[in-house]
């Protein structure tokens, strides 16, 4: 846990009074998967609020955990609709198969199991959410499969066979020059070449043209979470749209799609935020 980071989070949320506390705690919880004791002490000291009050807030709300959570989070919905459709059985089955109780984490620190009181997808109950991914109409038989998928990684997709992944041909929205590079292939297709700059360094960046794949190749190693500036290698215009990434807040990079549309990707390294508009962006 980095004290510098904690102080930065406090600054980002500073409202001049105590009101930003819950959002500060939420950001720390999201980053470290729990609220470290040291972090709470720093916050109490910096915001000059009582540690007793802060500890009370940290223990009152279910979203916060004082113990580290596992790498993956499995939440079983126990809302009324899910309960009436057999949610309790599913919940017990998860407890049995993972060998832990609700609120607990597997000994290898991989999976934390939790219950949620209604996620609001009641028509599709019983619902289980794993790392933000929803599984609906879960039956007792599928519990095993869900646990396996969790351990393997929910986001894993098979690029070749997945129907939802397809190639796009893009060009610069300013000069309309094609950005495709037939000399360098990624994922079996011509890559997209752009120029990026960060920390006074300029270099090329090549992206997979498969929409849904996040493979990249780069001249210089870009540190995780760093926001970089994108440029067209031909007209040197900066590629930056007025939209910001819904996941992380960084500026989006627009690329014109040949057959009609605009794809935008997030300019933050490691962020998978993206948008594909077919009718063109704003009026």
């Amino acid at each position: 846990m980095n004290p510098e980071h904690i102080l930065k989070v406090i600054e980002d949320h500073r409202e001049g009074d105590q009101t930003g506390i819950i959002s500060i705690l939420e950001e720390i919880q999201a980053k470290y998967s729990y609220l470290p004791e040291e972090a709470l002490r720093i916050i109490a000291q910096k915001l000059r609020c009582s540690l007793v009050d802060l500890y009370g807030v940290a223990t009152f709300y279910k979203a916060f955990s004082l113990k580290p959570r596992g790498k993956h989070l499995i939440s079983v919905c126990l809302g009324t609709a899910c309960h009436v459709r057999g949610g309790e059985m599913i919940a017990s089955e998860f407890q049995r198969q993972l060998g832990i109780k609700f609120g607990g984490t597997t000994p290898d620190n991989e999976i934390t199991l939790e219950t949620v009181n209604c996620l609001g997808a009641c028509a599709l109950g019983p619902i289980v959410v794993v790392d933000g991914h929803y599984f609906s109409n879960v039956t007792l038989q599928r519990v095993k499969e869900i646990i396996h998928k969790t351990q393997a990684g929910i986001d894993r997709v098979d690029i070749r066979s997945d129907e939802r992944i397809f190639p796009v041909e893009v060009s610069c929205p300013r000069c309309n020059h094609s950005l495709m590079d037939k000399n360098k292939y990624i994922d079996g297709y011509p890559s997209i070449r752009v120029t990026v700059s960060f920390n006074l360094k300029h270099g090329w960046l090549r992206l997979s043209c498969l929409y849904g794949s996040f493979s990249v190749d780069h001249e210089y190693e870009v540190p995780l979470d760093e926001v970089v500036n994108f440029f067209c290698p031909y007209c040197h215009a900066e590629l930056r749209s007025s939209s910001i990434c819904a996941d992380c807040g960084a500026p989006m990079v627009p690329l014109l799609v040949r057959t009609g549309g605009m794809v935008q990707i997030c300019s933050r390294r490691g962020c998978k935020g993206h948008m594909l508009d077919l009718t063109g962006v704003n009026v």
Partner: protein
Amino acid sequence: MEKVKSLDEFLSLHDRLTVDKNPSLPTLIIPAGTCGQASGANDLIRITKRELLNKKLTEKIKLRITGCHGFCEMEPSILIEPWGVYYPKVDPKKMVDIVESVAKGEVLQNLLFIDPTTGNPIEKQVDIPFFKKQVRTLLSRNEKVDPIRIYNYIENNGYLAMAKTLSSSHPRQVIEEVKASGLRGRGGAGFPTGLKWERLANQTNGNGKFIVCNADEGDPGAYMDRSLLEGNPHSIIEGMIIGAYGTGATRGIIYVRNEYPLAIKHLLIALRQANQLGLLGENILGTGFSFDIKMVRGAGAFVCGEETALIKSIEGRMGEPRQRPPFPVEKGIQGQPTLINNVETWANIPIIMGSGAQEFAKVGTTENTGTKIFSLVGRIKNTGLVEVPMGIPIEEIVNQIGGGPIHQMKIKAVQTGGPSGGCIPAEMFHLPVDYERLTKAGSIMGSGGMIVMDEHTCMVDLAKYFTKFLKEESCGKCFICRKGTQRMYEILDDISAGRGTLEHLDLIEELGPIIKYASLCGLGQTSPNPVLSTLRYFREEYVEHIEKKRCPAGVCKDLITYTINENCTGCGLCLKSCSAEAIRGEKKERHAIDPKRCIKCGACQSVCKFSAVETR
């Protein structure tokens, strides 16, 4: 985006957007709220985009991604405008055919919705029984609007009511209009909204009034607010701007619960867009009126839906309710006058100011005007969100819109109002949905959750479930609620495990009403409702649990045994599924369950294809 600085600039923007260059072009509408995404709408969207790009159809077919339309049972679904064609439960593999058919202007008969009573396919959404009986004032807008495009909202006359109100109405007129509409708070209590606004407007103490949108929809089983926030966030913003103008508030807060990530995402985008366009912030449309909205996230506490606890949570403290007086309208956030209204209440405001109070009051009854969105879930055929006029009998919602029970079961009761409400038995389904009648029957309207129960639902188990929920969500400050819910749960647990006595029922009937009037806040005051109402209407189930140690619905684990009947073909599937190794049997011979080893997980029953596993 350029800021719009005056009413004229706004109106000309509105005119520019409403000139449709290609009115006859078909639009593929895919609902992708949380339900939609959970059932695979994202796959449909991807494949559609792929097809439109590859087949170069982007100029011929429009694609609109929206929030929930309401028929969640049938998602992922597709609606095609302007023809009104509806395809339910679309298989991603059929997406290519659908895109092709739209390009040709054809309808794929084999993919249409089949009417369960006639067996005939229905082409248009408006003809489907689920939709026919609804009055979809709010939900229909979810179909027309892409939630993350403000221009789309304005194109559909969004922000028009706000612009006109700010420029030509006096704040007092706004309050009079809302009072005349008869709108009552949709959060559950049904307090007249206009009156609440008037109280805030009359406050002269403090410096800086707050208005809050309570989006902490904590009732399990209710998700109307989620669909409004995800599908049409701008309508809430517009409602709040009008509300701030009418009451003199300067700061707005939308408090969204943590468990709704998509709603939070869409709200943040919408707030940013409204700010960029100049509809929020300083000197809105050059009228001199300034107002800004901030979003605050909840952190997983049902009690924070209660007004005074909500205020504490916004202030960054533990969500413990406090006694009233003073009321939030007098002393709320940081001691300032604060008005709190529910999401659905706010969503109705642009409609009232747009078409007028008289028009609004035409729907519903005299004391209960307008529509109400209910989340119809549980043991019913057509689960989803339904928007109906106030005063409609429950029977119509359950049978005509909901399509009746599943699997030929009989519907026993509906639960309204979530954990604060109670059950209404089937004999009373002629009751209209209005605030007073539901309260008299022992339940409450609540935020709109309507959970349908059939013979497979045990009322004791249901009361136990709600009481457990309340016990865990109680803030714990006042002794009677904390101990009362705990003790009620203990008794219900005993009854459902076969340890109950008739004296327990008397104890509940004595303790319950006292918890009701001795608790500090609404959570405690309504916590005995589930058990008291189930006891009132289904006493015989309780008695059977106690005297015969039997659970008639076959739910309470300690009172049921799993057995295999003569339908068994000896296929062995149950044996394989049993993790307790409690099933024995030879191939092709009737299997048997050893009750001593059986852990009652239900796995065998769920795999059996022959309905051979039953519970007694």
